[in-house]
């Protein structure tokens, strides 16, 4: 059965059609599976499971036929290949986990399945989520649907490419230092990283445990709100850092706002909102096209009644060394579990146990992962711990305090996500430090554990998408999504599709 425009519909629109029984979950699932195969060369997917997806779709159709209604029932999605799944292989983008099958589903996967979503497959990412361009995937690079010669961002690059190319209405991502916000920005979609600890880390292949956080990526703030409502919430028995705060409904208020807006057009819907602009985010390091798009978006917020306030986050530059000490330190510890014994790659030839460890790990891990393991091992080693790891954690507290200081002057913080638009595949791989510097606007939010999001704000250099970053205080996801939703009611940047995928 052919529905030429089904893939253009977002989560909320599909859910409405499913609830009205205008389409079936099986139809849309079949359609999107075929579309994923037709665009295999985009490199977005690492695995599909047609049989399991159709079984879930049929189950959703049966629930719908029986009269059950819930906001995500029967809507397809796909998961970043960092979430373990029983029905599909999990690789974390690494040769180390080639052929690995998890005995259980990650909490986020299980919760979205319980909400009735249909899992189409697993999406490409940088190896163990380490990278900003998806070019560190051991399997294949993912391509940016706006220009295939460019990266889609990373590490959730497959998720971003799939959503932007209309292969799937929504996807999960994970964000350790910007891995949801940056690819969302570079592909013109919407993504939110909630407060650290808001979504369970159980079943997320661990990179840096004090930073890793799951979140949704979709085409609008409303669609993200629908997913996040089902993803977030306490998981106290399985994740020791899961926050003990009840789940929230992020979507109802946005839906109410939509109808209020249509009845009272031209209202100053963000009248009492103070938006802080950190001067460190608007310096010379940011490309002119990116600055222009961000400034234009901010002018739009002023039209909606918001007030722009100049603020300072004085330790923004320090977030780079602090993050690249803390994250590799935690990664070197987390990745020590890959020893070629219980799961993962084992070298074919070795002399003894130590040699087996060393050869298996050298063969299984790619260059960027090996580099971060080396950095992490060094900064945690005897005699260097205080100078690097402890020092970084101390500065981390100062960075978090800077945000609390800033939030006395404003309600949300706004700025660019990435200093440039998406770059050409291969352009930066020889200069690893340049890659790290490009994370400057996203790292501090991660270190502080604050929620942050990226929403499409227009286009910059080479006609490539630019995202606006919105950062909120702890647990202010609802506020962030509300602000983003008002912007999306007033603008249409989030509805733009890459030419090749717009039909």
């Amino acid at each position, binding site marked *: 059965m052919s529905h030429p425009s089904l893939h253009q519909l977002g989560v909320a629109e599909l859910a409405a059609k499913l609830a009205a029984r205008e389409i079936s979950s099986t139809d849309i699932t079949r359609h999107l599976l075929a579309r994923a195969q037709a665009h295999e060369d985009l490199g977005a997917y690492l695995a599909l499971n047609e049989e399991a997806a159709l079984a879930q779709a049929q189950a959703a159709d049966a629930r719908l036929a029986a009269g059950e209604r819930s906001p995500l029932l029967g809507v397809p999605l796909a998961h970043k290949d960092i979430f373990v799944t029983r029905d599909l292989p999990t690789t974390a983008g690494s040769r180390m986990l080639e052929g690995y*099958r998890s005995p259980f589903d990650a909490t986020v996967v299980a919760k979205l399945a319980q909400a009735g979503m249909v899992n189409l497959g697993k999406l490409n990412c940088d190896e163990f989520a380490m990278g900003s361009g998806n070019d560190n995937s051991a399997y294949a690079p993912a391509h940016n649907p706006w220009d295939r010669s460019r990266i889609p961002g990373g590490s959730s690059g497959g998720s971003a490419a799939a959503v932007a190319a209309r292969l799937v209405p929504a996807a999960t991502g994970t964000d350790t230092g910007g891995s949801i916000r940056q690819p969302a920005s570079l592909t013109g979609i919407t993504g939110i990283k909630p407060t650290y600890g808001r979504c369970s880390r159980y079943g997320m292949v661990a990179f840096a445990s004090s930073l890793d956080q799951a979140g949704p990526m979709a085409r609008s703030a409303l669609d993200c709100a629908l997913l996040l409502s089902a993803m977030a919430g306490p998981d106290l028995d399985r994740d*020791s*850092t899961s926050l003990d705060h009840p789940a929230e409904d992020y979507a109802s208020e946005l839906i109410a706002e939509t109808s209020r807006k249509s009845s009272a057009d031209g209202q100053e819907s963000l009248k009492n909102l103070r938006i802080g602009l950190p001067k460190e985010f608007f310096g010379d390091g940011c490309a002119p096209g990116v600055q222009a798009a961000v400034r234009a978006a901010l002018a739009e917020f002023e039209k909606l009644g918001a007030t722009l306030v100049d603020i300072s986050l004085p330790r923004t530059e320090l977030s780079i*060394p602090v993050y690249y000490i803390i994250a590799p330190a935690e990664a070197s510890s987390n990745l020590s579990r890959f020893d070629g014994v219980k799961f*993962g790659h084992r070298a074919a030839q070795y002399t003894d146990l130590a040699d087996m460890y060393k*050869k298996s790990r050298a063969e299984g891990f790619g260059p960027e992962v090996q580099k971060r*393991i*080396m950095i992490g091992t060094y900064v945690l080693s005897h005699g260097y711990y205080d100078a*690097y790891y402890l020092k970084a954690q*101390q500065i981390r507290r100062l960075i978090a305090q800077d945000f609390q200081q800033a939030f006395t002057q404003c309600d949300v913080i706004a700025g660019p996500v990435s200093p440039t638009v998406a770059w050409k595949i291969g352009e930066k791989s020889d200069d690893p430090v340049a890659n790290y510097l490009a994370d400057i606007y996203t790292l501090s939010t991660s270190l502080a554990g604050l929620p942050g999001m990226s929403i499409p704000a227009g286009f910059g250099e080479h006609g490539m998408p630019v995202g606006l970053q919105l950062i909120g205080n702890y647990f202010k996801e609802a506020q962030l999504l509300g602000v983003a939703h008002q912007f999306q009611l007033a603008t249409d940047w989030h509805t733009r599709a890459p030419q090749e995928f717009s039909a």
Partner: protein
Amino acid sequence: MSLTPQDITRIANLARLELDAPHAERMLQQLNGFFDIVEQMNAVDTTGVEPLAHPTAVMERVALRLRDDVASEPNQREANQQSAPAVERGLFLVPKVIE
């Protein structure tokens, strides 16, 4: 501060990574390039600042939870071993450790 080739050998051993000479040389350059940008941390006075491990501890008290020490998971030996490189009679196989 600059790392030496001996440092790389020592760290690689701690990290249980086999690095051949060209890889070790490349690693040395990359790590030294990286630690150049780390130097700016030294200029920050952190006297008396408590290290921050759990980010939301800035806002609220974060207590480490303990659960009761009871077996709550079903036996999943086969599912847990399905991705192991070498298994025999329900046991993981490793190279001989003690002669």
